[in-house]
C-alpha cells in the first residue's frame, strides 16, 4: 500500500465537495486526509487529498474524478514535484513531571506553544505528515488530551499551476 497525494481544481459550486467525497465513499476509496479551500480565483476551489492504495486504485480514482463535470484539473503531487505541509495542534496535559521533557521535544521539532494553562498546553507544529506522526509518537509517552490536524496542503514546485493544466 502506498500513499498518494492528489490535488484537484473544481468549480466553486454549491455542493461540489459533496460530489467528490460521495464518489470516494461510493467506490470505497480510502482517503486518509483531505483539505478544501477557495483559491486565487473565486471561480475555483482546490481539494487536496491523500489516498492509500495501490497504483491501480489511484489510477481508477483519478479516472473517476475526471468524470465529474465540476472537476477542472487533476494533478498527482509527489515528493519530487511538490512541497507539502500540514498543521497540527496537540493539547498536552500540563504535568510538572513531564513538562521539561515535552518542551525539549517540542523545541527539537520546532513546535510552538500557543496556549498555556495550569492543567494543559497546546503545541502547534507545521511540517510534513511524517514529522507529525513522529511527534505524536514522542508525545504518546506523555498524556495527549487532544489532537487536531488539518490534512496535507500541497503545491507544485516551480511556476506550473493546476489552472494551467485545465483541459476539461
Amino acid at each position: 500500500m502506498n500513499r498518494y497525494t492528489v490535488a484537484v481544481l473544481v468549480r466553486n459550486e454549491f455542493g461540489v465537495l459533496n460530489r467528490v467525497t460521495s464518489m470516494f465513499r461510493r467506490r470505497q476509496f480510502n482517503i486518509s486526509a483531505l483539505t478544501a479551500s477557495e483559491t486565487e480565483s473565486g471561480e475555483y476551489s482546490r481539494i487536496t487529498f491523500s489516498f492509500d492504495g495501490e497504483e491501480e486504485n489511484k489510477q481508477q480514482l483519478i479516472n473517476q474524478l475526471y468524470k465529474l463535470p465540476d472537476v477542472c484539473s487533476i494533478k498527482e503531487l509527489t515528493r519530487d514535484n511538490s512541497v507539502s505541509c500540514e498543521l497540527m495542534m496537540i493539547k498536552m496535559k500540563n504535568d510538572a513531571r513531564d513538562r521539561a521533557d515535552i518542551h525539549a521535544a517540542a523545541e527539537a521539532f520546532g513546535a510552538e506553544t500557543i496556549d498555556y494553562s495550569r492543567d494543559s498546553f497546546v503545541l502547534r507544529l507545521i511540517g510534513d505528515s511524517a514529522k507529525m506522526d513522529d511527534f505524536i509518537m514522542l508525545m504518546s509517552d506523555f498524556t495527549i488530551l487532544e489532537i487536531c490536524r488539518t490534512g496535507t496542503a500541497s503545491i507544485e514546485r516551480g511556476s506550473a499551476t493546476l489552472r494551467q493544466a485545465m483541459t476539461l
Partner: protein
Amino acid sequence: MMLSGSDILVKTLIEQGCDTVFGYPGGQILNVYDSLYTHQDKINHVLTAHEQGAAHAADGYARTTGKVGVVISTSGPGATNLVTGIATAYLDSIPLVAICGNVPTTQIGSDSFQEIDITGVTLPITKHNYFVSSVEQLADTIRDAFRLAKSGRPGPVLIDVPKDIQIARCEYFPEEPATMDAPCAAKDIRIEEAAEYINSAERPYVYFGGGLISAAAQDELLDLAERIDAPLGCSLMGLSAIPTAHPRFLGMQGMHGHYASSMAMHNADLIIALGVRFNDRVTGNRARFATKAKIIHIDTDGSELGKTVNATCRLRGDVKLTLQKLLPMLKENAKPQWMEMIAAFRKEENEYLDDRKGLTPRSAVLAVNRYLGENTAVCTDVGQHQMWSAQNLVFRTPRRFVSSGGLGTMGFGLGAAIGAAYGTGERSVLITGDGSFGMCLNELATAVSYNIPIVVVIMNNGVLGMVRQWQTLFYDKHYSNSILDRKTDFPALARAFGADGEAVSTPDELDKALERAFSANGPYVIDCRIDKDEFVLPMLPPGGSMDDIIVKLEVE
C-alpha cells in the same frame, strides 16, 4: 422575450429537439404542466400511471432513438419514484434528462410538504445533477444537461427546479440544440500498439457492448472482423447492434451466453473489447477469465479500462473514431484453423440446443421472431425470460433490443415498451415474466389510454424462475418465497384495463394469439403458460469459469 421559468423550460426542451416527454404532474411542477398545455402543438406529453413508468418510457425512447429521453415529475414522492428509472439508465449509459419540481427556494431545507433533497438522492446515479437557483440559469442549465447526457459515455442528468423559479420571469433567447462534446480517437501510440497485437494474433475474438451502439460503430466493427477473420460476440447490451444472422456473429457471451460465443472468448489469444465493461456476469471468476488471451480494451470512459480486468492494451477514446484509425494498420489475414475451431464450437452448441416439442421458452421466443418486423423493438423485464429472449431473438436493426442489463430492473419492460413504441413509431413487443409483469403492470392503463400497440408475452410459470433456478442449483431446492402461484387472470386483467388478451398453452395457440396480437390496435396480453422448472442454459455458475459451464441439466 420575457418569459416565465416554466415557459422557458418548455421552450428550451423544444429548442433541444425534444418532441415527446413522459411524466406525471403534481403540486410543485404545475407551472411546467401549464406551459406544456400551451405548447402542446409542439411537444407531446405522455401521462403514465406512475413516475417510474415514465422514467422507463423515457429510457425506452432514448434506447430506440439514440436521442435524449425526457421525464418530468413533481417534487418529493414524484421525484423519488424516478429513482429506479434513473438508476436503470445510469447503469446502462442511456441519455436521459429528468426534470423535477421542488418547493420554492424560500422553503428549501425546511422539510416542507413533498420536499425531498432529490439532487442528494440521485448523486450516485446520475452523471451530474443541477439545482436551479435562479431563473436566469434555467435555459443554459437545460442545454448543459442535454449536452452532458449525450456526450462521451451517455447517462442520466437530473434538474431540480423549485416552484418560484418556474414562476419568475426573465429574458429568453432561443439557441441551437446543444452539440455533443467532440469525440476523439485514442492516442496514436496506443492504436499502433493495438495494431501490433492484432496483427500477431492467431485467435482473435471481437467483443462488443452497448458502447458500440452509442458510438454507432457497426460498420467499423464488421470491417474489423472481416479483415482479421475474427468471430464476433457481444454482451447483453450489445445485442441488436449487428444483425443476429450475420455469419460471424456467435451471440451473447457470459453467464447465460451462447456456448460457442463463450468458448470462442475462452479460447481466444486476443480479445478486442469495444464499448464493454467486463461486468461480473460476463467474466465469472475473474482470476480464471480468458486466461489465454491478451485484451485490447477500447472505451470512451477511461475509468472502465483496467477497472475489472487487466487489459494489456488500453485505449481511451471514441470507439468509432479509434477503429477508423486502427483499421488501415491491420493486415488482412485469414485464419482457417481458428475458423475451424469456431465451427466446431457452433456444432457443439447446436447439439445442446433445446428443440423439445410443445410450448417451451425457446419455442415461444422463436414464435415471436416470426412476427417481428425489421424495425420492431423487443423489450424485456428481468429474469429467465430476459435470458431466453437474449439468446433466441433475431434482430435486423440496431437499437431494437431494449433490456435492463446493468441494474437488472424487474418492472422495466412495460414502461420501456411504451417509450419504444413512441421511439420507433410502431408496435413494440414486451417479453416478460409473471413476476416482473406484476411489478409495474399499471402501465397497461397508459398503453390503453394512448392506444399504444404493444404485444405483451408473459412467460408465466407461477414462480420467480431465475430465483428458483438458483435455489434448485445452489440452495438445496429451498424454494423460499419464490413460488408465486397467484390467482391473477392476466387476460381478464388486460380486459379490465381496456386491453385484450388470452392465455395459451400450446405452440399452436401461441401462434394464433400472436397473429391476433400483432394486428390489434392497442396492447394485447398473451399469458403464455410454461413449466416452472425450465432452466436458462447454458449457465456459468457464479464464481465459475468456462470449465464449469453447465450446458445440460440432470435434475430429478
